[in-house]
């Protein structure tokens, strides 16, 4: 009898412009389960099917990039299983990896890309940032933000810290260079992206007039500096997509929104950086993880309305 106690439903999902998904179901039971489990699932309140939907891990059991897996969780954690009733508990528990995230978050995208690059299976849980759930608040009480990675019950917060953690735990396909100086450089540029690109980008859609103009100039300056750092290399990581590429590429799906609200073209100012971004988009882990730029733009319209920004 398998102690995984998970029922995974796979189906095909098609996204609509308003983010409603509909499924054509093909039930496929992946694991054997006891009859009590089925009863638990049917009767489970908070652990029911509304809790989670998720993408499978990148690479390993990928049945196609449109697949979404609905994961029904047994409300009882595997770790509280009675050893007497389940003789397999002594065997090594499989990793439980949960990502609390939000579709439009560039910071969340970083973690999605990292997990996909490593082929880690995980459960994706979309969070409502306007009405944060108790689980998120429990897992990140200090900042109350996404993304949060929960690995075997232990939460890790802050996107770059999460990515370094993922890189250290799953050692295949390294994201950070092994050379100490190159690692320091990678961390430096990732930190630069957080300090300069993110802040200026937000001010472009949030502000108007002179303040917006200043934000645009800072944004373009930051991108041009990054473009110089990239030089002739295909990726910031050299020949291979790496930590700095991962830190920056999620912002690319926000460029359309920044450009439209700020009335400028990034390609005009940083053509090589746009080439780099297009090169990154061909990588499966990236294309699967980035949000659709049109949807990002529509989302920002909603944010602007909410915050009373014209």
């Amino acid at each position: 009898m398998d102690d995984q106690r998970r029922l995974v439903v796979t189906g095909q999902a098609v996204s609509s412009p308003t983010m409603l998904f509909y499924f054509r179901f093909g039930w496929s039971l992946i694991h054997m389960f006891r009859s009590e489990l089925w009863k638990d699932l049917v009767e489970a309140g908070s652990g029911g099917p509304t809790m989670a939907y998720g993408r499978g891990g990148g690479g390993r059991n990928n049945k196609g990039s449109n697949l979404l897996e609905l994961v029904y969780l047994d409300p009882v954690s595997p770790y509280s299983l009675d050893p007497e009733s389940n003789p397999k508990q002594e065997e090594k528990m499989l990793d439980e990896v949960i990502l609390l995230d939000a579709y439009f978050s560039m910071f969340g995208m970083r973690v999605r890309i990292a997990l996909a690059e490593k082929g880690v299976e995980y459960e994706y849980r979309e969070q409502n940032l306007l009405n944060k759930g108790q689980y998120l608040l429990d897992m990140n009480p200090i900042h109350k933000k996404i993304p949060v990675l929960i690995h075997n019950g232990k939460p890790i917060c802050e996107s770059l810290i999460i990515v370094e953690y993922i890189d250290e735990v799953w050692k295949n396909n390294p994201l950070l260079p092994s050379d100490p100086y190159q690692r320091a450089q990678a961390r430096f540029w990732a930190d630069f992206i957080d300090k300069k690109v993110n802040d200026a980008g937000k001010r472009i859609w949030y502000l108007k007039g002179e303040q917006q103009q200043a934000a645009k100039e800072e944004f373009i300056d930051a991108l041009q500096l990054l473009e110089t750092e990239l030089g002739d290399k295909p990726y910031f990581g050299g020949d291979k997509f790496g930590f700095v590429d991962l830190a920056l590429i999620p912002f690319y799906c926000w460029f359309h929104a920044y450009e439209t609200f700020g009335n400028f073209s990034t390609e005009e100012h940083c053509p090589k950086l746009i080439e780099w971004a297009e090169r990154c988009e061909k990588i499966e882990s990236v294309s699967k993880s980035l949000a659709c730029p049109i949807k990002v733009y529509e989302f920002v319209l909603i944010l602007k309305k909410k915050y009373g920004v014209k």
Partner: protein
Amino acid sequence: MEASDVTLLGMWACPYVNRAQLALKIKSITYEFIDDNPHERREMLLKYNPVHKKIPILIHGDKPVCESLIIVQYIDDAWANGPSILPSDAYDRALARFWAAYIDDKWYPLVKVLRQTEKQEERTSLIQKLSEGLMLLEEAFVNCSKGKPYFGGDNIGYLDIVLGSVLGWLRVTEIVVEVQLLDETKTPGLAKWADRFCSDDAVKDVLPEIDSLLELNKKIQAFIKAGGFK
């Protein structure tokens, strides 16, 4: 372990510079310390840190490393044979990095603002926020130290360096504003840790005296009142 090709560009009273010095001390690395007055050594700043133009800058074999937290991690990586600065467990490392980011992004900046503001209302609000932050750091200390003397366990580690380096300016702020922030009755673990940290021989060698910092603070305040940099 010695290295003659290591230079640290910094300023004796800057806590971010002190972090690099503490890390170098732990690894027993000899280095040249260029005590920098930013306005006199501008060329070196522009050459080695053109992006941010700030200290500290660690120059190892003519290759610069900038940003204090990155420098400390670099020192740990590059001199891997010495005592470890970051924890060995990946989760403990993530926790240490998390709290370091909290200290630098959320908590410590308030210390400087408190020291420089004269409005009572603002002071009250800042004191409240700093005290709440210290309660969180107390909890962090309990979780990270796991009953041992330091955040890093038996020995001074990453988070000890990050928080310990700002204790001097925290004390200066307490004196100037006439408030007790680090309070043994509210955060006993942290208060005892602070005493222990500051009494450590390696730390005493590196961190500036409180009196010197107070002196410097007076000069800085006078400079700001006179109009600051034009």
